[in-house]
């Protein structure tokens, strides 16, 4: 009997001769913080891409809120409440930070995006700025994306994904491309903001300090399979994980 908010059962995915996901089964309860670890090519991003609709699994079931979402388009999955950020922040470079946020607000609004309602409407701007403030990036609101640091880009990417009614947030390497001294402040900010809203978090991460500090449960991937699924300390001390993933004790 399934109890998780997200239930992944026996999911498989191959790209030609390469099997990127072999019988992946995971149950993620509501409000949990999961991290995905593994070497490059282990299948972490494939997992995220399958859950968010970028890749259609060859077989298996991805249940979310009682509905099999495997094979749905990304926008349909987003509309259900599964949002994501990207390893390389996906932003609109010709727009300002505030305008990027306005786009997210317009799409995620309570009504359909309008052909008449001004995008720069006072209430829309207030909502956008409030979200930017929550992520401590409101001061950058009039800047264009190429002028921003990696950390601010990451935060904006996540803030945009949070504009809707998010139930699950998948963060693909939220601290990659971020300066070392910015990593923990950014993660503190993001995880606190997501937890405050009761959002279930699944994040891909290579930094084991971040994994240990922020996740409640860790899924270790190797060669398209989950080789460990437990609390951080248990997973990181697992000899198989040390051999194939971390390369030694954490």
């Amino acid at each position, binding site marked *: 009997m399934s109890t998780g908010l997200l239930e992944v059962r026996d999911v498989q995915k191959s790209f030609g001769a390469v099997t990127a996901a072999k019988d992946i089964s995971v149950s993620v309860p509501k409000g949990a913080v999961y991290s995905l670890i593994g070497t490059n090519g282990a299948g972490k991003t494939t997992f995220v891409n399958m859950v*968010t609709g970028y890749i259609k699994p060859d077989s298996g079931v991805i249940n979310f809120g009682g509905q099999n979402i495997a094979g749905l*388009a*990304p*926008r349909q999955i*987003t*509309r259900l409440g599964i*949002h*994501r950020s*990207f390893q390389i922040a*996906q*932003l*609109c*470079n*010709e*727009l300002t930070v505030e*305008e*990027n946020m*306005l*786009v*997210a607000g*317009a*799409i*995620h*609004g309570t009504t359909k*995006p*309008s*052909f*008449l*309602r*001004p*995008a*720069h409407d006072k209430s*829309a701007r207030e909502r956008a700025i409030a979200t930017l403030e929550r992520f401590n990036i409101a001061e950058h609101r009039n800047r264009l994306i190429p002028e921003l640091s990696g950390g601010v880009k990451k935060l904006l990417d996540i803030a*945009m*994904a949070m*504009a*809707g009614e998010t139930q699950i947030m998948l963060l693909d390497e939220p601290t990659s491309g971020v300066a070392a001294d910015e990593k923990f402040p950014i993660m503190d900010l993001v995880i606190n903001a997501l937890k405050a809203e009761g959002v279930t978090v699944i994040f891909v991460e290579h930094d084991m300090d971040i994994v240990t500090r922020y996740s409640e449960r860790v899924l270790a991937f190797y060669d398209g399979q989950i080789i460990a699924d437990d609390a951080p300390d248990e997973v990181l001390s697992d000899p198989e994980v040390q051999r194939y993933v971390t390369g030694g004790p954490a």
Partner: protein
Amino acid sequence: MMHLPVYVSAIIAFVLLAAGSLVLPDWAMFLFAMALAKGLVCLGIVGMMRGGVVSFGQGLYYCLGAYTATLVANSFGVSDIFLLTLISAAVCLAVGLVFGPLLSSYRGIFFAMLSLALSMVLYGTLSKMSFIGGTDGLNIGAPTFLGWAPEGRPLQTALYIYVVAIVVIAGALMRIYFDSEQGLITLAMRDNELRVEYLGASVRHVMTYNYVFGALLGGIGGTIAVLALGHVDPEFAFWTTSGEFVFVAILAGYLSVPAVFVAAIILELVRSFSNLYFPNTWQLALGIFLLIVIVALPGGLGSLIKRSKETDT
């Protein structure tokens, strides 16, 4: 009041442009009417450019609108300009709704070439249909205005004011659309389709809206052009006609609606005077002119308006 600056600008633009009918000679009024009609078609291209695609086949709707008006006028004796515009717009809207979803999956050169192919299919078909004039085309009588049938200078003036009114209304509506939530999503799509899809919007739907609006504007532009000229032929759908529209759209850029009509008027003026003073090399002058604009103003004439606004603030 929502959109008040747009309404005020539209009223001022209408008054200024309409006042031109008091001072402009007949030839200039005709030239302006044609330029504004073509500007409407180009405005449709600009709408698509904001989403990151350029249609090289907008002649399809320009021609379709013109032929629809002519055939309705000649076959059913309809001469009312409002009714002819409405019927042509409806036909172009319907055709746009058929082709829009098909083309919305394509980007870049594929979108451009497919749209061009559609217009060339219409060109080829019309050229072979001798019962509607073949390559010679068709003539259409002077339009009437809700029962009023002016002739000579009053006809020119009425037609010119009608064009100005349509242009101002269409321009204001497109400005409202460009500034709207959907308009901003279009701009975001131009930058990053992946982000837009992952925010939960359908990129294909947005593309289709822009294409359909372009079809509608193209049809209205074609109707006005044929009523001003009194003649339509398959050249309306030929690739060089579509190329002219793209030329104007590039010249204008996607930032400003008035810039589209200014660019259309510039093209008509440059073409008319170049044709008059150096008939064999006027295309060269046009090419050099476009080259200068692309190098000096990569964002088009519209970027000048934006730049001056930024300087003011």
